[in-house]
């Protein structure tokens, strides 16, 4: 899980956003796990990564921007709701990538 988060973070520095799925997939292929387990690893990894970065950024920004974006996305202007949505969307993609990897190389 830590590896997925790390690789996703590195990908995010240089590559498009959806490479988090690739990172989760790759780790899941290299370190085989049961599918459900893999999904949650990927999910949790990106959830914590995206949620964590968003939370840190938001704290430093004192929610100036998140309040505006959250209002725009009908989240009632709540910074925390926006951080959760951010984390959840990323997590779904990360989980999906990991799950796909787990099916490619099932645990023997």
């Amino acid at each position, binding site marked *: 899980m830590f590896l997925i988060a790390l690789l996703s*973070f590195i990908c*995010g*520095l240089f590559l*498009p*956003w*959806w490479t*988090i*799925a690739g990172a989760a997939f790759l780790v899941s292929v290299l370190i085989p796990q049961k*599918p459900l387990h893999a999904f949650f690893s990927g999910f949790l990894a990106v959830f914590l990564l*995206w949620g964590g*970065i*968003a939370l840190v*950024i*938001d704290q*430093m*920004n*004192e929610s*100036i*921007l*998140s309040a*505006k*974006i959250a*209002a*725009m996305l009908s989240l009632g202007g709540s910074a925390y709701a926006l951080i959760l*949505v*951010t984390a959840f*969307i*990323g997590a*779904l*993609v990360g989980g*999906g*990538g990991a*799950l*796909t990897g787990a*099916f*490619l*190389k*099932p645990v023997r």
Partner: protein
Amino acid sequence: MRIVPFLLSFLLTTGLIVCLNRQWGSLKKTPVMGSFLSPQHGFWQNAEPVGKDFSGSVTLPGLKEKGDVYFDENLIPHVYANSETDACYIQGYLHAKFRLWQMEFQTFAAAGRLSEVLGAGKDNGYLTYDRAMRRLGMVTAAQASLVEMEKDSTTKKDCDAYTAGVNAWISQLKEGDLPLEYKLLNYRPEPWTNLKIALFVKYMAYDLAGGDNDFEMTNAKSFFSKEDFAKLYPAMQDSLDPIIPKGKHFLPPFFVPKAPATADSLYFNNPVTVTDRELKSEKSNGSNNWAISGTKTLSHAPILCNDPHLSTNLPSIWYQMQIHTPGYNAYGVSFPGAPFIIIGFNDNCAWGITNAGRDVRDYYSIKFKDDTRSEYWFNKQWKAVTMRVDTIKIKDAPAFYDTVATTVFGPVMFDPTYTGYSDVASSRSYAVRWKAADTSNELATFSRFQCIKNYDDYKQALELFKCPGQSFVFADKAGVVAIRQEGEFPAKWKGQGLFVMPGEDSSYMWQSDSIRREENPYMFADTSNRGFVSSANQQPADSTYPYYLGSDFPIYRGLIINRYLNRMNSITPADMMKMQVDNFDVFAEMARPLLLRFIDRSKLNDEATVFLNTFRQWNLMNNASEEGPVIFQYWWDQLEKNILDDDFSGSSLPLMRPHESTVLEALLKDTAWSFIDNKDTKDRKETLGEVVTDAFLKIIPQLQQDAKDDRLTWAKNKDTWARHLLRLPELSRTHLAIGGGARCINAAKQFHGPSWRMIVQLTSKTEAYGVYPGGQSGNPGSPYYDTFIDYWASGRYYPLWVMAPDEIKDKRVKWVMHFNN
């Protein structure tokens, strides 16, 4: 491998990514959610840490020498460069760093490219706008002006450097660094070019000289009798106090334009009508400026004041800065999108600008041979047009191809394929002659302003300024105080261009493209015995001015400014601050006695009487918490409806409504004005007392509703915003507690108002104050996005700090950026 679950999982994940990697919705599209939410790519990257360190150093090979930028606590840069060229380079870099999206978006608007990033819009609104800008010739005008600009070696060098500075910023941008709006709309910035600078300058010309009422006036002329027309649209108001005070003796005109022999039959009395509707710039784009001679100030030094009224947008149209080079030291506001300081001061002089508002856009009726519109009747023969096909790209849709014919008059703005904002089909065609379409180099004026040392320099710098015509106030430390209305104004015969003109021969064309410069209105404060000069978009002179001026000017701000300045002595900058945010309504002062005299109090119930008493006791100030202005505005609007609606409802065509000043002055002179009678009630003749009373009774329900909704006080009722350019409320500052209004010096309307208040006292050490409704950063995620708005709304000012070279260690310097070559 477990093939089925693998495929299923693969497809689901890929499907999810694909869904998150595109925009949804038809008109109002969502951002690309995946990248938008990604904390490493999307909007989170625009959430600027509070307390961010803006210091740093960059190496930019385009610079000739090193330069330094000192930011103060409001993120205002004090640029120290070793040449004008380097100053422009750094200015371009800073504009891009803090305002990139806005500067590019404005040039897209100028070039008719909004559909490219926003789609065709509701009812093809953006496409209609884009076609208008293209047809008007904005792009061709900018291209032609660029050639002119680049002939001037200084302008060329400066623009090249500015563009290089912008591109130095753009070229190092990563996805996450893009301004928020690019992420919302899903596009990327293009490289900047000198053409975009020219487009921006033309956009300002459009904004300030892109208004006329030719179609509405043409219809009114055809609809009303000659007598009624004269009553509704007088050439001048009685209470006008022109920029050049009445009584000035003007020399006879150098050139006398002659009305064509056919003017009466083919023009003034020809009952033609127009159904097309023009794109017009904001009508109240105006401004105040004045400058006071040392004889009237406490310090004995001149004081110059300016507050240009523009749309109160976020990011603001202005970016404040100081530019210091070995040759000059200028402070003021600049336009993100163009080099130089536009309004401001240097170590010797100060200057300010208001819009002249003269009519420099006219239409000609074109007779085409056939539907191909390739030949038109001109001077007794068929003449070929120049044909141009514009490609208007539309986001997520096939491009639109617009075929535009150009005649000797100018481009054909309206034809059967384009009726503007009208949905009535029309078989007629109109070509447009617009002064802003001429080649020009207005930027050269501002380049020179930065280093003017005296009145002669200022006058010389103005010689290059063509369009949009402006009234420039000037004051210097030697004590000279002056105003000049400058620009190229066509010399027109009386009434020329008030209506659509016949375009079948050359007789109606402008006979001279420009009144000679020395004939433009100007004055000095000291020779006028008045001790000050001022302008507020009113007519520059009375009817003794030897050229036709047109008739579409606001008069009330000018009246109150001159009244105050005439009364005042020993003036201080603090007095000027009070005056710039003054909310007195002269129009209401003139109208109230009339309304109170004619209302029939016996018809009012108790509630209505309470409202009337509030109005009667109102101090005539459009202050934020007053109820008087709301009652007055409703009452006056309803009274105009009562008086005029029956006279105007007989025509389905767009008709010009008379100015409020026209109606008021007519009623003051003649309480039995012929329009008061309601034509629809044939058996009886209404009196002024009846319509005034009826209008008041009609507004009572709305006033009661407003009282319930807490919208009865003026600020809440007019609801001023600093509105994001994309009109997104979340990125705007809404419901600002500010008074004022269109007729007050403090001209704050709903989305429009004093865009930069500046006061400069030219003592040996300049003392200056300023504020604009925005912030130095264009990033909605920055604490500097809206820094100045509360100060602006509450009428407060910031001292403007002209940083001296020995102040680089001053504690007001918060951050330093070093620019290395």
